[in-house]
């Protein structure tokens, strides 16, 4: 499981929609996660499986339903990555400020 794998898994509008739904409410039945998407039932499961393989989503059978749950560690790893990039922007803006205020 790596940050590139995660972002790769999200690099598809349908999968991104599924993750957005799950970030609003988790766990959620697989049926609701994939509801209304332009996919066959099998296609939906295949896309969901990409998210499972990337470690973003965990599937849990409960009774007759299968629930999908977001893996919080995956999200926090992505947040950490974006935080590092944020720090890089702070460094750049600081360099701009020093460049302009030096003289």
């Amino acid at each position: 499981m790596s940050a590139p794998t995660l972002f790769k898994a999200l690099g598809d509008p349908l999968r991104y929609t599924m993750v957005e739904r799950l970030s609003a409410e988790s766990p959620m039945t697989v049926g609701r996660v994939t509801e209304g998407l332009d996919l066959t039932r099998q296609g939906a499961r295949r896309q969901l499986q990409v998210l499972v393989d990337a470690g973003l989503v965990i599937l849990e059978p409960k009774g007759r339903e299968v629930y999908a749950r977001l893996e919080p560690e995956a999200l926090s790893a992505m947040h950490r990555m974006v935080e590092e990039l944020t720090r890089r922007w702070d460094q750049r803006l600081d360099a701009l400020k020093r460049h302009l205020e030096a003289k």
Partner: protein
Amino acid sequence: MNTVPDRIERSVVIAAPIERIFKAISDPAEFGTWFSDGVEGDFEVGSQPVIDEGKYGRFRLAIIANEPPTYFAYRWVSGTAFVPAGFTDNPLEHPNTLVEFRLTAVEGGTEVRVVETGFASLPESYAAQNHEDNTGGWEYQLAALAKYVIG
């Protein structure tokens, strides 16, 4: 913390006139001193200059807007875990992020606001380009990224 991160927004107030700051951002020669170690090409809309970020690699920008003195924007495939050695292909032919500089005159100088968006839609293609699968998991990847970012 519960949503997919897609956006970075940072700002700074600099004690200089807006036109002066806009020039520092939109003039390749000047950009090549504070942001990068040089720029090849120009910053006209539609141009694709290459900036040299030294140890981080070389990156091709696609200039989207250059509207003095308030707005400058480009797209690129930037320094993430995806492209550890830089990225000089045409960014518009790949999933990319949009970087926007917005300048506003404020008391005491000019506010420079940077927004970078599009992380959540990155990318099928770079993961494939990313060197061998890393087997150390999160921490390995993040340590490499932290090293890359912080230097």
